[in-house]
């Protein structure tokens, strides 16, 4: 409490005000949000991590026991889980990278073409505001082997017969990835567009006068300014994609033959179909660990970039 008072006072000094410090008021303001966060977010998270070290199961009468690292040892030999993990990484990278490149292209176009910005913005609303379940349903209609528009278009263009995109062993994952890219494109574009609007335009013009080509201008002027935003949004996209659930649940429910069974789907089935709470929690822990490692790398890259400039 005293330390909070002290820091609060320092904060106030920069505001240039004096008078009675209403610190209890601050606590009063913070508590309504803090309590639910602690009870329903931080607490369960710790509880969840603890569960990973137990044999907790749904609907069991015997008391739950500590089993130490048993769940993790089992996971190590669970080839299905690692297969799902591999698919999850493929999916997360396969969605995040094209999403970023496409969004960058779109953002650059929109940054120049002021005339069409309203139209593109209006259209960008659609994937962003839609429930993920509806996005999944919509693309199932597009991919539908008989009544879908994709096969019909392919037939019309004379590119051969269509196929069951979501049911083919080879096509299911790519087909699902396309949907993932589509769904996240607007958000990424808006973030990058925001970043672009912070780039110094005078510098851009100066470089153009000096005879720098479009690519060179992009590399030397635009990219350095855009880099922090780009790193932040790709990191977030990667995390969101790796943890995504609803889209693939609706599109394929992990099929065919587990080819699109993302780790989240796997853990969901383990927990709520088979009732293996402890084991599923251990999976969650492994997923957090992987994401943390990824974030650490990302952060290092970010700091490295900071030294350059």
């Amino acid at each position, binding site marked *: 409490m005293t*330390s*909070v008072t002290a*820091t609060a006072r320092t*904060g106030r000094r920069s*505001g*240039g005000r004096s008078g009675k410090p209403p610190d209890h008021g*601050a606590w009063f303001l*913070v508590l*309504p949000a803090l309590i*639910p*966060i602690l009870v*329903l*977010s931080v*607490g369960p998270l710790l*509880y*969840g991590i603890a569960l990973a070290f137990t044999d907790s199961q749904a609907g069991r009468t015997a008391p739950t026991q500590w089993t130490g690292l048993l769940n993790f040892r089992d996971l190590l030999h669970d080839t299905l889980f690692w297969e799902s993990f591999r698919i999850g990484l493929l999916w997360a990278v396969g969605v995040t990278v094209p999403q970023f490149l*496409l969004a960058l*292209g*779109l953002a650059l176009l929109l940054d120049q*073409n002021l005339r069409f910005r309203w139209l593109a*913005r209006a259209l960008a*609303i659609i994937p*962003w*505001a*839609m*429930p*993920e*379940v*509806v996005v999944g*349903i*919509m693309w*199932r*209609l*597009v991919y539908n082997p*008989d*009544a879908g*528009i994709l096969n*019909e278009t392919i037939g019309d263009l004379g590119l051969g017969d269509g196929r069951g995109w*979501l*049911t083919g062993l080879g096509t299911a994952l790519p087909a699902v990835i396309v949907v993932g890219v589509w769904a996240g494109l607007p958000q990424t574009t*808006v*973030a990058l567009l*925001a970043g672009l609007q*912070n780039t110094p335009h005078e510098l851009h013009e100066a470089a153009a006068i000096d005879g720098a080509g479009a690519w060179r201008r992009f590399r030397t002027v635009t990219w350095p300014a855009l880099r922090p935003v780009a790193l932040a949004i790709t990191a977030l996209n990667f*995390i969101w994609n*790796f943890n995504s*659930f*609803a889209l693939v*649940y*609706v599109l394929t429910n992990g099929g065919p033959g587990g080819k699109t069974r993302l780790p*989240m789907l796997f*853990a*969901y089935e383990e927990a*709520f179909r088979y009732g293996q*709470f402890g084991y*599923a*929690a251990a999976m*969650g*822990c492994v997923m*957090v660990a992987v994401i943390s490692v990824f974030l650490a790398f990302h952060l290092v890259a970010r700091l490295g970039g900071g030294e350059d400039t």
Partner: protein
Amino acid sequence: MALLGYLVFLAFPFFWLISTAFKPARELGSLHPTWIPRHPTLDNFRQAFDEQPLLRAGFNSLVAAVSAALIAVVVATPMAYVMARRRGRLATAATGWVVVSQAFPFVLLIIPLFLVLKSLHLINSVAGLVMVYVVWSLPFALWMLVGYVRAVPLELEEAAAVDGAGRLRTLVSVTAPLLAPGIVATGLFAFITAWNEFFFALVLLKTPEKQTLPVVLTHFLGAEGAADLGPLAAAAFLATLPSLAVFAVIQRRITSGMLAGAVKS
């Protein structure tokens, strides 16, 4: 030209959804589907309401989303104010939590939440779901609100203090009116988040009469994609309209809110 390609890619699935929703069964069964229904019909909508309890589900979704949004805003605004105006340890911790919470895999959260809510007998109840939604929408709500609070000049509050207005008085008659648009935008965003949410609803709501729209929509899918396409498309289209409408209203504020939070922190 390239822009046109983007627009087509972004728009065509939605167009196809609408087209399917208005097609009569005969055209849906045809081997050569057309972009535009030749004989548009509302049969699919009627059938959708017959097959699944859509009204009930829509009502559940509405209750869950509206309560979650209201509570989230009421709870988050004071905290965001403190986070924006003070640079204490608490504010740092809260900002850290906002960032970290983005990385939680929901599995790790949903299992303990399920157990906790079960012991409170709040499984299969909209109230339990609302509690989860409030906490779930808090990080982004705080993020946006902090940006909006920072946009309110501190000088205005100081001026009010100089004029002898108390702390509460300053908040109510100076800060709150300036914050109001931001608060509304944040609340509407929380509404969309809750309206669209699927995973928690799937796990926590067991019986059809309690389930929200996204969960009920998946009942149309049936086994192995043997879905009745027309009603499915019709129901999906209807479920999208509220979030589309709300999003259209706040879209500009969302993007600027993201910016405000991002640029100044």
